[in-house]
């Protein structure tokens, strides 16, 4: 049993993957000597060499496009995009190539590529360093999208993602990089594409993922003091969604609040609301309510705490749900 941060857990998970399979390579800007701007790949180039931990030229489309080529050659590339806001130059390669080569080849070719994206706000950064672009990728068939909310999941999920034969966009909640947890390696990890009930409850279901799981757990704690038992679901997998866990919870609580940092309009909350309403129409006591970033570009850091959903905004929405 060891205690480690999410950043270290990801590092350890990648180390495991590099050890386990010589075809695993890591590529990205500054992932080598520097170990990435968040030090998530620290020490890996030193131990596995420049051929396996590759500092890429400053070109995101190039990073993903060459990863596609390496995958065709039998490699399993793990690409790092330095910050969420810099994934867009690679959008074409991700959406039109990476996501489709398996399909285009009628299942003959595989694209075992992981694209790691530190995402989300709350770190006081400048523009383009606090985005939550997950919905773009969830709307793209052919991709799978996952995100971890704590070090233990980080450790296992990165290994599972690397082991997967499908392309996976792996979102890492950068403001949780330095939070710690205990890892007991003897406990078997949950399947990659499964959601989990992070806290059981009976009154309202909070659905969150990545950085917002902690916020929701805090909210549930606060609500408990006021006598409301909130169930918190950590989605973990954003595409495909593990709706079974969600439906089960909703059938019990009849009330749902979705929470994410991304803009509300066409964010994950929309899809959750649509599916839940269709599937649990007669169980819902209130409409699915959504908390999220406002429908404006991420603001400068001095107001980001207001932009980001926090405990108060979550509880406010819980109250609204309960008021139905």
């Amino acid at each position: 049993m060891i205690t480690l941060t999410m950043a270290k857990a990801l590092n350890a998970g990648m180390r495991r993957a590099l050890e386990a399979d010589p075809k695993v390579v890591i590529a990205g800007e500054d992932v080598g000597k520097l170990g990435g701007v968040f030090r998530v790949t620290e020490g890996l180039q030193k131990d596995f060499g420049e051929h396996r931990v590759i500092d890429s030229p400053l070109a995101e489309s190039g990073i993903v496009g060459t990863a596609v080529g390496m995958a065709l050659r039998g490699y399993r590339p793990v690409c790092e995009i330095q910050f969420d806001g810099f994934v867009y130059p690679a959008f074409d390669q991700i959406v039109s190539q990476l996501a489709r080569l398996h399909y285009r080849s009628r299942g003959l070719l595989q694209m075992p590529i992981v694209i790691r994206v530190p995402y989300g706000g709350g770190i006081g950064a400048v523009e383009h360093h606090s985005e939550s672009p997950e919905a773009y990728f969830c709307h793209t068939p052919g991709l799978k999208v996952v995100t971890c909310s704590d070090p233990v999941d980080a450790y296992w999920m990165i290994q599972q993602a690397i082991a997967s034969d499908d392309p996976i966009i792996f979102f890492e909640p950068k403001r949780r990089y330095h939070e710690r947890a205990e890892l007991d390696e003897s406990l078997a990890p949950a399947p990659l594409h499964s959601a989990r009930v992070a806290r059981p409850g009976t009154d309202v279901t909070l659905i969150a993922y990545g950085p917002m799981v902690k916020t929701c757990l805090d909210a549930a704690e606060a609500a408990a003091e006021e006598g409301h038992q909130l169930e918190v679901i950590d989605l973990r997998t954003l595409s495909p969604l593990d709706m079974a866990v969600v439906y089960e919870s909703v059938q019990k609580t009849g009330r749902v609040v979705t929470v994410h940092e991304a803009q509300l309009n066409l964010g994950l909350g929309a899809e959750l609301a649509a599916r839940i309403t269709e599937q649990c129409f007669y169980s819902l006591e209130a409409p699915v309510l959504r908390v999220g970033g406002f429908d404006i570009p991420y603001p400068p850091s001095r107001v980001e705490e207001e932009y980001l959903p926090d405990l108060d905004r979550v509880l406010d929405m819980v109250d609204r749900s309960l008021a139905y």
Partner: protein
Amino acid sequence: MSDISGASGEVELVQLLTPEGERLEHPEYSFSGDDDQIKNFYHDMVLTRRVDAEATALQRQGELGLWASCLGQEAAQVGSGRALGKQDFVFPTYREHGVAWCLGVDPLHLLALFRGIDLGGWDSQQSRFHLYTIVIGAQTLHATGYAMGVERDGLVGTGDPDRDMAVVCYFGDGATSEGDVSEAFIFASSYNAPIVFICQNNQWAISEPIERQSRIPLYRRASGFGFPGVRVDGNDVLAVYAATTAALERARSGSGPSLIEAYTYRMGAHTTSDDPTKYRLADELEHWRLKDPIERVRAYLRRSGSGDDPFFADVEAEASDYAADLRARCLALPDPEMLDFFDWVYAEQTTHLAEQKAHYAEYLATFEDVSQAPVDGLAPAQSASGRQPQPAYPRGVH
């Protein structure tokens, strides 16, 4: 300021066979094969052209949705395709039918794609011919990444001809403007990847002339990225073969990337949807017709005596038979099944898609209940007018 001489001056073009069929010497490049090999080139080019013409005809008759003809580019494609070693791997655009031919890809697969049956049905790993890429320039990065993998596999510079390998990547003149292509040049140069970039400069990107993309000869683009470039007469199969052979050798030996600009001409429309009379003059076509890649080989073979009437007649006959057979096979292609596509999205199927597929299958079944026997594979989708009676609606996860 660094000089940009050559921008307007005379541009050297490697040529080993004139349009009149005369062999030329070149200080750097030579064709060392014999006339039998040249006869094989001739054969491949004629067959390529015939297949291409058949495909165009099939499109005109409504049997293909579209066709991108390679008419006029046979030498650029066969010359480079035949230079490939048996380990080398190719990344094409959507027009490399002649290269596909050289690598033994059944043209039926190309027709199937343009017929709308699939998005690339050949086994690209086995044929060493990657699937066609339609997004301009995207494949240049795939090719570069593949070459980086080859280098990591230790398959360059070993000196063992059965091991060393290289990657060839095709793209058009228009493609050179896409950011991806420049990024591919940068990665290839930075990692010294064993790759040969072949730009078929056919003078046009749909309606845009080459001048819109570059004001200097394209082969010079490479020098700014730190690797060599050369312009060859793309209608001269010997020059293309020689230049590709040299560039492949260079790549396999570990000396890194290079660029070949095969200077040629798109004799046909961009695709069967295009009408080039809107934007280019007939003169230009006439001018290039005189440089035909096949005619000059025929002239040479006649001149050298290696090709006689029976030879030419045989090739012609073979081409006709091949085309007739191809046409028949094309018409016999079965239509795809919508339901299958749900299974090709992921290596590991998701519950969501499996359910969506199941619901769609149930939905389809409601039509079959009514009509008992569908008239053909497309029956359900065609029944929009005659609705089925109320089915028992499964509660759908959409």
